[in-house]
């Protein structure tokens, strides 16, 4: 360590080594430096080559997926967004499940269910199912699960939980759930409530429940490194049979260009949430394929009808509807990846009315209507919307503002992050806003109670009625559907309600249905059918 002493200003002479004559030292030093630098360079280049060549090979029974949203926690009730439920559907099962292109409701952990009276739902449970830790699945686990839903500390399904009056264990494999008031779509929701193991959830530390899932699902969690990857391996004792792919590694990548790069470089097999701008690049790449399906989510504009405001007049609302060129929005902004919508629910939903048609784009007629209503000079209105929630949401709002400006309506644009936008919607203080929606129950009733019903704090209705739209006819017809359980009857009444809302009252201006885009590696034999709810359920994918 003698050389350290040279850092001081005046090293003691005794510490310095024998000094060779200056000139010879210069020559040898120069030669040594050259040798050393070349050696270092050589080593560096070798190292780089070794590192580059040591590319890890993907195992054959494995699949790597890049999803656009990471899981928040491994507690199946803690996140009611589709992104979160998508992960949980692999580790857990609900009493029922949805499969297929139309999201058909099928038996899950319950083999049969019925509805003996308006308030009771009976589920007959599957026998011989075990949780990942070996515990047997029985009615006690179902009771525990539903009673857990009301606790806001661990559950975002408090709404579902609070609707339940009691859970009765009839015997080890039969459960009867009584609701506080008739809820016709109750069973339709059962694919989202995942059953947890009573014994292990109660005995474990709540922090452990948040990171280690113990369910009955097709996959078991192998490793979860937050922010990096989720590794799961197949459950050989799964009641539906072991899933086709042995190991699945999910890598959440939120940045879309990085997701694209991961796909192109071959690091991942499937990518979800392909942004519309990158569609052309992927289609032109011979190694990749795009898989698309029409999404269930419809994008629409909410308008208020407070007396005294311009939009209270239905002619004004009609004019605004006709002033927007939806086809151009789909073509230019959504790059063709959307389908025009005439209503809010999508085709598989009960209440979807195929007879409703979009009003045609007609700015001249719009201007006439405005003049008729007394607004020949137009009026001012603010359009609020999110800028980080839906596909191209901010751009759509801009386009709408521009179309309305052409018929004389001056729109002030107010786009903001979803965390600020949605609380404003729930406060009902907006005049005109952009929003998207789809209902997981495939039944329009619940959606309408939340979106169209007059705001009522006590009854908890109209929470998302952002412009406080209020119409007594709609309220009356909607409330009458609450008691109807027969699906055919529900369908008729809800369709009539839908028509009234879209054609007679123009509660919303519908825009389009989004499209879900995924990309997969060609030539790896991946069989992937996207689900309508955008969940990635790996037992349904094979390679």
């Amino acid at each position, binding site marked *: 360590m003698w050389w350290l002493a*040279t*850092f001081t200003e005046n090293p003691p002479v005794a510490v310095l080594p024998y000094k060779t004559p*200056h000139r010879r*030292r*210069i020559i040898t*030093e120069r030669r040594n430096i050259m040798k050393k630098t070349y050696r270092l360079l050589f080593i560096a280049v070798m190292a780089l080559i070794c*590192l*580059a060549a*040591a*590319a890890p090979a993907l195992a054959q029974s494995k699949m790597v997926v890049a999803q656009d949203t990471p899981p*928040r*926690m491994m*507690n199946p009730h*803690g996140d*009611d967004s589709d992104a979160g439920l998508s992960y949980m559907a692999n580790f857990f099962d609900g009493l029922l499940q949805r499969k297929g292109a139309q999201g058909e409701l099928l038996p899950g952990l319950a083999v049969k269910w019925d509805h003996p009276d308006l308030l009771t739902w009976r589920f007959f449970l599957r026998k011989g199912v075990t949780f990942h830790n070996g515990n047997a699945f029985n009615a006690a686990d179902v009771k525990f699960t539903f009673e857990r839903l009301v606790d*806001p500390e*661990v559950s*975002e*399904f*408090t*709404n*579902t939980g*609070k609707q339940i009056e009691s859970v009765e264990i009839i015997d080890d494999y039969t459960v009867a759930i009584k609701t506080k008031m008739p809820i016709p779509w109750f069973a339709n929701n059962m694919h989202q409530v995942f059953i947890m193991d009573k014994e292990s959830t109660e005995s474990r530390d709540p*922090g452990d429940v*948040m*990171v280690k899932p113990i369910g009955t699902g097709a996959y078991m969690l192998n490793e979860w*490194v*937050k*922010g*990096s*990857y989720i590794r799961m391996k197949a459950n050989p004792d799964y009641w539906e049979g072991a899933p086709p792919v042995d190991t699945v590694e999910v*890598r*959440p*990548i*939120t*940045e879309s*260009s*990085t997701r694209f*790069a*991961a796909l*192109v*470089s*071959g*690091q991942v097999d499937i990518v979800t949430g392909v942004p519309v701008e990158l569609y052309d690049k992927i289609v032109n790449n011979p190694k990749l394929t795009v898989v698309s399906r029409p999404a269930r989510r419809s994008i629409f504009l909410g308008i208020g009808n407070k007396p005294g405001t311009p939009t209270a007049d239905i002619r004004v609302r009609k004019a605004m509807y006709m002033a927007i060129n939806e086809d151009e929005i789909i073509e230019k902004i959504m790059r063709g990846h959307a389908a025009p919508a005439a209503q809010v629910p999508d085709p598989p939903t009960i209440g979807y009315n195929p007879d409703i048609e979009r009003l045609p784009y007609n700015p001249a007629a719009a201007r006439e209507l405005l003049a008729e209503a007394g607004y020949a000079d137009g009026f001012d209105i603010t359009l609020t919307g999110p800028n980080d929630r839906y596909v191209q949401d901010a751009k759509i709002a801009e386009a709408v503002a521009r179309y309305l400006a052409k018929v004389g309506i001056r729109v002030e644009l107010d786009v903001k*992050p979803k*965390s*600020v*936008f*949605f*609380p404003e919607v*729930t406060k009902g203080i907006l005049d005109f806003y952009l929003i998207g929606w789809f209902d997981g129950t495939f039944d329009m009733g*619940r959606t309408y109670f*939340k979106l169209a019903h007059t705001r009522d*704090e*006590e*009854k*908890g*209705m109209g*929470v*998302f009625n952002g412009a406080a739209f209020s119409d007594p006819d709609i309220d009356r017809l909607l409330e009458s559907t609450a008691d109807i359980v027969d699906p055919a009857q529900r369908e008729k009444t809800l369709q009539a309600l839908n028509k009234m809302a879209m054609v007679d009252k123009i509660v919303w201006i519908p825009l389009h249905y989004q499209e879900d885009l995924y990309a997969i590696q060609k030539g790896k034999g991946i069989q992937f059918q996207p689900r309508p709810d955008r969940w990635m359920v790996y037992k349904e994918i094979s390679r």
Partner: protein
Amino acid sequence: MGTYILRRLIQGVVVILVASMFCFVIFQYMGDPALNMVGQYASFEEIREVREMLGLDQPIYVQYLKFIWNALHGNFGKSYVTRVPALGLILERFPATFELVTVAVLLAFFTGVSLGVLVSLKPYAMRNRFIMALSLGGVSIPTFLIGIVLIMIFAAYLGLLPAFGRGDTIQVGFWRTGFLTISGLRHLILPAVTLAMYQLAVLLRLTRAGMREVLTEEYIKTAWAKGLPPRKVIFKHALRNVMIPVVTMTGLQFGELIAFSIVTETIFQWPGMGNLLLTSIYEGDQPVIVTYIMLAALIIITANIVVDILYAVINPRIRYD
């Protein structure tokens, strides 16, 4: 010196308190966390209950004092999004950020200083002018652009290096490290280079400027006249006097990068603290945000104090009292 350090520490505490107070004021305008927690189908009643449970219905100063009181006991609240303790959530990601920043800073320091010395010796040679032009690019091109271009070249087109993530990591005690696996080291290359670019360019210019000034000094001329070998003159005599501002700069950058390497972490999906801060801001996760800001303030203040002390150690003419 002792009183100086104590004074700086007290100033640091004041800064942390002011930063956290700021956060609380801003939270009033950031939206409603209760809404995010109850799910889309909740009723007004349920939203109100959750708001009470979280203590959000109380006036700001009450919330703030409660927060400080809990913080003094080590409880920084639970994340609204993942329902786990906020401090643990942040510290869990600390090793990832620390490793990335360390590698980036070392890379920037050694490359920047060496290139700076090289460039200062013959400032108007073609090669050196070229390097200076590149450094201008390093300073002005934004980090996300450098990152994306590197990913496109090395990961997408050449397929040499991985595009995202940390690779295989090994847990050593509580520290999850990427240094012990080939995969981990490979994943470190692109993000570290991206992060290092700006610092490298700055250090290069700083070193060059310092060296140019020092090389015209009298004692350097004496050293040349004495016939000392060039290496001794440049490194032992000239560079050491330039090192003071360079080391100061590096120390400050180290602190700042650890706290705010958000952009690079987002592009490379690096599971570090910066990434967590960004997602928390989007999701309105207030406990995590305020805890993070306080932690970031603490890190930067500590880095500043350490650098100032180091400055005094290196340069004995500096005295603190």
